[in-house]
């Protein structure tokens, strides 16, 4: 009733929507909705948020650095939840990977010669996987990340408006 136009079935929007809806049904199937206590809502919110992130990352596959980093983070988190020991291992491997890639980019990371290191670092913290990117890649990834975030917001926002 809101969108008279039909979506391209292979577009990012449609991929994300189908995945997210699937995750949503799974979440609601897991727990009965009868309890609306704050903890319940909060837990559900966390799960929904993770589902949204995961759906987005999976829709983008591994084509982007940030999606790869996000998928990595999600997977390591799930591993850690299953097995606390493996969490340490995966944490170490993650650090090793990050360090390796950051060594490759170190020459261009800290001193870009353009003079805005603080903002770049802040951006790196915002974009997943940004710590290992040089400024050039960071800007690319930011652009794509912004595009995906706006897609998410577009899809979520009609909820409140009915």
């Amino acid at each position, binding site marked *: *009733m*809101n*969108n*008279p*136009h*039909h*979506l391209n079935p292979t577009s990012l*929007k449609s991929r994300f*929507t*189908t995945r997210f*809806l*699937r995750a949503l*049904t799974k*979440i*609601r199937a897991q727990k*009965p*909705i009868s309890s*609306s*206590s*704050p*903890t319940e*809502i*909060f837990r*559900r*919110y966390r*799960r*929904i948020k993770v589902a*949204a992130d995961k759906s987005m990352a999976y829709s983008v596959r591994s084509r982007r650095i940030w999606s790869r980093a996000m998928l990595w983070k999600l997977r390591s988190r799930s591993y850690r939840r299953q097995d606390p020991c493996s969490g340490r291992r995966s944490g170490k491997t993650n650090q090793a990977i990050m360090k390796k890639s950051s060594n490759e980019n170190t020459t*261009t990371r800290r001193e*870009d*010669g353009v*003079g*805005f290191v603080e*903002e*770049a670092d*802040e*951006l790196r913290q*915002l*974009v997943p996987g940004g710590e290992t990117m040089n*400024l*050039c890649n960071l*800007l690319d990834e*930011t*652009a794509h*990340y*912004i*595009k995906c*975030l*706006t897609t*998410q*917001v*577009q*899809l*979520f*926002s*009609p*909820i*409140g*408006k*009915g």
Partner: protein
Amino acid sequence: MDVTVLDRQQATYPLELFASSVPLFQSYLGSGPIVELKRPEAYLGGDGFHEFVYFPVGGGPEFGDSEKLNLVPPDAAPGYCISRTSSCQMTAFHAASMKEEREDMILEKMESTTGSGSRESFTKRKAEVVADHKSKDKRIKSEVEGESEVKTKCSTQVSRNSSKENSKACEVQKPDYIHVRARRGQATDSHSLAERARREKISKKMKCLQDLVPGCNKVTGKAGMLDEIINYVQSLQRQVEFLSMKIAALNSSVEFNVENLPIKEFPAYVANFPAAAKLPAMPNLTCFQLNPMQKEAVNCMLNETIHPPLTATEGIASASVSIPEQALSSSTITQLQPFSTWNMDPQGLYNVYDMGFH
């Protein structure tokens, strides 16, 4: 003497054409300041050089018609311009880019600024250039002139002005290496050239980001733009969090079949959730580990339920309206201020934010 020298180089380009082509040349100048670079013969009289710099703006549209080097008047011998400019394909060289101020990386073989005394060096440079064009195989090659003929740059101010408005580098026809023109006073070693290439790329990407982020046009300077981008990304992330919180609160026992669900009906399904009316008064929020804004959000949602909403969706809608107001009063207000400069766009939450501002 000069004529013979020049004729040797371009046999097909008679000298008398120069005078006639100058006015034509000027008409092309609106498109790009690179023009003078193609016509070193025109610099034979150094005083005439300044004419080329202050070009009329109306010449722009002409230029945009073709991507090739139309800087040379049409009646010029093609051989002439090709021999000079074969290395430079102005693929990205359109009128719009001219207005933007770029760094001065021109894939240009010809020295743009020579006085009359340097004609010989000019031709020597041309010969060098043509030879170099065949022989060099480095990735990035700085101008031979830059290294050896630094002294022969003329009317520096003019050249600097013109070069400042020059467009970005063009690709060589031979994909092996990129030719780069160094600005006066700039180093020409490979490091600084690579550095400049990087900065060019970065500024290009910043321009793309500028299009994505609303309200970036008002900010000038890279640092300010980066701040805007950071704020925008933060706000987007917060919006997603807030909306997913809304979904969590709205969730009810309504089942829907994903496979049969057309995407456009997704909002309709969610809007049917009557769960909003079931929101009980939440006694305490200490169990929540929320950041301040989320706390405010939940607080407001609670406050809304105390005064019972008319319908589920209306309740949530009104709650969502008041939430940005509350959020404004929180510590994030300084970061949210720039949002008011964003244009109203159809995205639902932006409308909500705007409503919260009024």
